[in-house]
């Protein structure tokens, strides 16, 4: 048992470190290090533009989309090499935020189901950051139940006409392409009438509107489609086989290991180390210690769980299911930590002004954003279902809508 790299891994790490040292945009280092959860905004520069420049630089030197094949703009690297790269890229990895959905989900889906022509034309541009992709899955009436989506794709000669609405689309306003999940047959049972496409986000009839979230931030969008035309060549997989295609997309999402999961623990430990309550130093309080210890072991548990998965990758094996706990544990933890940090501050904990809030209002920002973390990318409840069904082997829920034609499934109020 050790934490050491193999000689090959060490050589790869040295190469990556050297390149990052020589090429990273160091002027953003401090700001990126302090960035808290959620979408990052830079004081001196547009996040997307700075991100694109970094992505292009990486692409030119062969450090973009590492696990993709070379002919599509990647490096053909092994999964463990990709993780080593992420470790060495460090805080600059935060600049890749606009490209993560493309690299992790859209790209692999196009790779698996797209035509060779599309793969060669689109994927290298995605890898270089020249073109950004978004994922058009969720709808107002299809969140956790994504197969309940209602956006229609209707045949029209050699193409399709799209009408409907998507929601919670990250980056739609700056994306060039979108992976679109649509219903092609409303008479079929809900999982069987779906088809996957990709589309140009600048197509006529596509309208992107930002959503103002409960936190006051605008990180997501609604996307409306009115008679948007897509050529049939942009269909991914067979007509009616969209559900299987989407599983590929989502499986790729879950395979991302060692991702930068924020727990809030370093922040709360540092805060309690300095903060003085009416009873004295917060860290001397047994009640504070008990809470900190609980979060410390959760945070440590997540770290070493990721290490176990990395060990499997390092041996060239597929990691076990243990990483599926990550977001479930971290999401609640961030919320609890932020709540506790403000509790220690009493009434002043509610203040957010730069002059009034402790540590720059970091916990207040965490707290107001935390409910979103527990919902986006799989709610806590869906994640528990996944663990129960796919890891523990429990039976799926009994579904009343499974074999019913989609257009006969009852909807709200009926």
């Amino acid at each position, binding site marked *: *048992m050790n934490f050491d790299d193999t000689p090959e891994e060490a050589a790869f790490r040295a190469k990556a470190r050297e390149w990052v040292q020589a090429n990273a945009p160091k002027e953003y280092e401090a700001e990126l290090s302090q960035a808290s959860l959620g979408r990052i905004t830079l004081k001196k520069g547009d996040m997307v533009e700075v991100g694109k420049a970094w992505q292009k630089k990486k692409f030119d030197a062969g450090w973009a989309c590492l696990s993709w094949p070379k002919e599509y703009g990647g490096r053909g690297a092994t999964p463990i090499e990709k993780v080593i790269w992420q470790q060495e890229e460090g805080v600059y990895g935060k600049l890749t935020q606009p490209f993560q959905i493309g690299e992790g989900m859209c790209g692999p889906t196009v790779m698996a189901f797209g035509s060779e022509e599309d793969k060669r034309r689109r994927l290298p541009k995605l890898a270089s950051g020249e073109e950004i992709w978004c994922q058009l899955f969720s709808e107002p009436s299809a969140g956790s139940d994504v197969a309940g989506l209602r956006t229609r794709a209707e045949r029209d000669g050699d193409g399709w006409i799209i009408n409907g609405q998507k929601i919670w689309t990250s980056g739609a306003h700056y994306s060039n392409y979108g992976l679109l999940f649509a219903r092609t047959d409303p008479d079929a049972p809900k999982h069987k009438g779906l088809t996957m496409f990709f589309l140009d986000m600048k197509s006529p009839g596509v309208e992107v509107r930002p959503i103002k979230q409960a936190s006051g931030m605008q990180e997501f969008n609604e996307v409306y489609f009115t008679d948007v035309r897509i050529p049939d060549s942009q269909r991914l997989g067979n007509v009616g086989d969209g559900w299987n295609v989407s599983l590929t997309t989502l499986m790729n999402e879950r395979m991302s290991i060692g991702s930068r999961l924020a727990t809030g623990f370093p922040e709360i430990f540092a805060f309690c180390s300095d903060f003085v309550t009416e009873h004295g130093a917060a860290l001397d309080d047994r009640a504070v210690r008990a809470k900190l210890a609980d979060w410390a*072991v959760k945070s440590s548990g997540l770290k070493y769980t990721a290490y176990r998965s990395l060990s499997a990758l390092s041996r060239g094996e597929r990691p076990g299911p243990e990483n599926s706990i990550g977001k479930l544990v971290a999401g609640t933890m961030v919320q609890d930590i932020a709540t506790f940090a403000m509790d220690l501050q009493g009434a002043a904990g509610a203040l957010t002004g730069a002059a009034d809030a402790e540590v720059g209002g970091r916990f207040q920002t965490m707290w107001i954003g935390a409910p979103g973390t527990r919902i986006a990318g799989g709610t806590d409840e869906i994640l528990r279902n996944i663990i*129960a069904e796919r890891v523990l082997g429990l039976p799926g*829920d009994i579904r009343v809508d499974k074999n019913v034609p989609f257009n006969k499934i009852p909807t709200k109020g009926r």
Partner: protein
Amino acid sequence: MNFEFSDDQKQLRDQARRFLAEKCPPKAVRAVLEGSAGYDKALWSGLAEMGFLGVAIPEEFGGTGAGHLELCVIAEEMGRALAPVPFSSTVYLAAEALMLAGSDAQKQKWLPKIASGDAIGTLALFEGPGNPSPQAIKVAAANGVLNGVKKPVADGAIADFAIVAARNGSGGRETDIALYLVDLKAGGVEAKTLTNLDPSRNQAELTFKDCKAEPLGATNEGWSILSRVLDRAAVLMAFEQVGGADRALEMGRDYALDRIAFGRQIGSFQAIKHILADMYVAATLARSNCYYGAWALSTNAGELPEAAATARISATQAFQHCSKQNIQVHGGMGFTWEFDCHLYYRRSNALALSLGSLSYWEDQLIERMRKKNAA
């Protein structure tokens, strides 16, 4: 990165699991729980024959000298099977204390007997309610004899020898505490079995009356030796707890697949799925923290005090959570004497309260993290 047990170690685990499945079914645990023997003697001899008692004891002292990672693997299996034997007292505490601080003669005398199953050892630390603290130790050492009362002492009524923490000076400072090695069969000590919540393990009161004792290690270093022993034992105990947690999770899962209510498997209800998913989360976090502890223990890393506290807290939480929720998943049947759920519930509590309880280790962890940060 190789944060995983080796293939040989995994083979050892399979071997231990098979052995315990045969020699330590729930029936054997119940025999001790409902009887008066205090432990399963046949199982204890079997464990010695398999070489499991001396797996971390060097060959020159009668062990197999395999190492502490191997001991972690076996500890997990002992926890899974709820082995009703004085394994933790003898192997995690007495043997570790001897190996850390014993003289050559002391090691020669006792370690081979531990490995061969001929001697049961324990640590006599607590004196009534409370967690480890030098001030709480009142048993007095003077002129080579001990006087005072220790309770509870795990496996105290079945042990052949004990490592006893005693006050050597007049105050309650750390340097006033010394460890003594006492042959419990040589007179001067009276052992009385105490009733407790997990009768599959013995708990006793030991009364020392002018009892002959020899120092183990320097007499002003008892507390620091003890702290190191507790850290080492905490990692090993954590593996035992994770073994128990995993088994409780499996029992709950299997029952949820088997039991039909409202015309369907109860495991198809989200209310049950979510209970089991949370058990899996707790068990997984604990296992990963245990691996961290195992790494620190086996390499004598500077991180051991922090890693031990981390593994211990996480594993205590996991075993308590899983054994408690396993009963909930089982419903009424889980609360019968007939079903095995209560055996795990009882054991999770017994292990949680030994070696210092959850609140003690939580306090230790934060103190250790603070010291590290200040350094």
